[in-house]
């Protein structure tokens, strides 16, 4: 089977600073691939290049069979690439259901219609409700997104990403800011998504990374310094020195 996401020799520099220095990554179907690394390692810039808000200087990005290296973000999204943001990104003045309905619309590319036939509206809301049930928010469709707890907002963000029925989800620190209990619930939720789509996960919470990931790449100063299964990474002396610390 072809890889869902294939990043080949990706390069990006700002002046003399090489933020992405020849990164090559693969995401196998149905797997979770975690990218870890200290602050400033270039994780966020990498995510931006994959999602399309930053254009790489060289190298290529393939989503399944499509070369998406130069496509704008919305085209990538329609080809099946969904992302979540490091900073919680929901539409606070919209209801939970409306948030997801908007994501369904965006993915279908039919968002600009002015008229809304009732039947289409019902199909849209049904699709949105199904997604909400999957992330455990079925009980609160009418709440304003801004009124949700932090953990629930994170669940809603996952729903927004899932609404597109993506091939690949880019999750940029989905656990950031979550308390221990919320983190546990989110990790369990992420685990249920394995197999539905490929997930490229950037996360600082090492417990989560080692529980969830099938494969881990360690980024340092723009380079992949190690790649392997969680067990291999845990044992890698270079990784321990660069990042994890001796006590890990």
């Amino acid at each position, binding site marked *: 089977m072809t890889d869902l996401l294939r990043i080949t020799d990706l390069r990006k520099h700002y002046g003399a600073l090489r933020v992405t220095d020849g990164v090559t990554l693969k995401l196998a179907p149905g797997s979770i691939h975690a990218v870890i690394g200290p602050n400033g390692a270039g994780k966020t810039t990498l995510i931006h290049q994959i999602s399309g808000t930053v254009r790489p200087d060289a190298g290529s990005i393939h989503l399944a069979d499509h070369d998406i290296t130069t496509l*704008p973000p919305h085209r990538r999204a329609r080809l099946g690439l969904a992302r979540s943001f490091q900073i919680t990104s929901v*539409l606070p003045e*919209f209801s939970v259901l409306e948030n997801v309905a908007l994501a369904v*619309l965006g993915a279908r*590319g039919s968002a600009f219609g002015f008229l809304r036939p009732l039947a289409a509206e019902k199909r849209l809301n049904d699709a949105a409700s199904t997604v909400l049930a999957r992330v455990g928010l079925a009980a609160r469709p009418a709440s304003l997104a801004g009124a949700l707890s932090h953990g629930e907002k994170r669940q809603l963000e996952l729903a927004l990403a899932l609404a597109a029925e993506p091939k690949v989800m880019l999750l940029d620190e989905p656990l950031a800011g979550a308390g221990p209990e919320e983190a546990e619930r989110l990790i369990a939720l992420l685990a249920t998504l394995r197999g539905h789509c490929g997930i490229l996960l950037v996360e600082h919470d090492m417990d989560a990374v080692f529980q969830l990931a099938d494969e881990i790449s360690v980024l340092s100063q723009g380079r992949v310094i190690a790649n392997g299964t969680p067990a291999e990474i845990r044992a890698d002396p270079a990784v321990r020195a660069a990042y994890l610390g001796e006590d890990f």
Partner: protein
Amino acid sequence: MTLLAVQLLNGFQLGMLLFLVAAGLTLVFGVMNFVNLAHGVQYMLGAYLGVTCASLAGGFWLGLLLAAMAAGAFGLALEWLIFRHLYARSDLDQVLATFGIIVTLNEAVRLLWGSAPLELPMPDLLSGSFMLMDGLRYPVYRIAITAVGLLVGLALAFLVNRTRAGMLIRAGASNPDMVNALGVDIRRLFRLVFGIGAMLAGFAGVLAAPLVSVEPGMGENVLILAFVVIVIGGIGSIRGAFIAAILVGLVDTVGRTMITDLSHAVLSGQAASRLGPALASMLIYLVMAAVLAWRPAGLFPART
């Protein structure tokens, strides 16, 4: 009492014109974070095009329609030629470039139409006045502007709150990057918003033309007031723009009279005649400062 009634009506009417200009400005600023100083130019162009179209088409109404559409088309052309290259630039670059457009277009208008002020006659249908109360007649045309402003406000409220395109516009004003990542072509959304905004500003220019003298630079005064409106209303919010436009229109019109009267009551003649007008022109900025001290993001902030 009659004077106050007239001032109130005039204030509403000014507010409605400001709303037509500010609606596009606030959406463009809110959705795309683009500072468009040249928005006032659309208002001026609307007035000039209105004069020309009305004389070519042989009537105010057809002129109004043609001029509003031409102003919208011109706005879209500007967006395609210049503005879209500025979105990723800094605020300062945007301000400089759009200021350059103001200067250029003011001069272009001077070349094409001359520097002498032009007039657009009122349509016959609306040119009379009616009895407001004993001893006071009020022009029908000003009431018509107020009514049209209210109608456009309702139509925009429907568009923004009840249609899918409107849902996207609100979502885009709240978090453009996220909406883009959901698969929405944010540039296309912006062109839609920009075209509507340019058309409304041009429309406002034609409506105002029979009341003011049509001359180069007439857009700048309106632009400054429109910026005050969107800052008070909250950037990106149509509802905020509507309420703030009425507020600014009323404060500017009623406040001017009241402050001048008040300063005459408190101070001696000469001091009052100097202080009154100075205070009056500061009034809307004082209101803006007060609103911002109370709610720094404006009355109805769209972005969070």
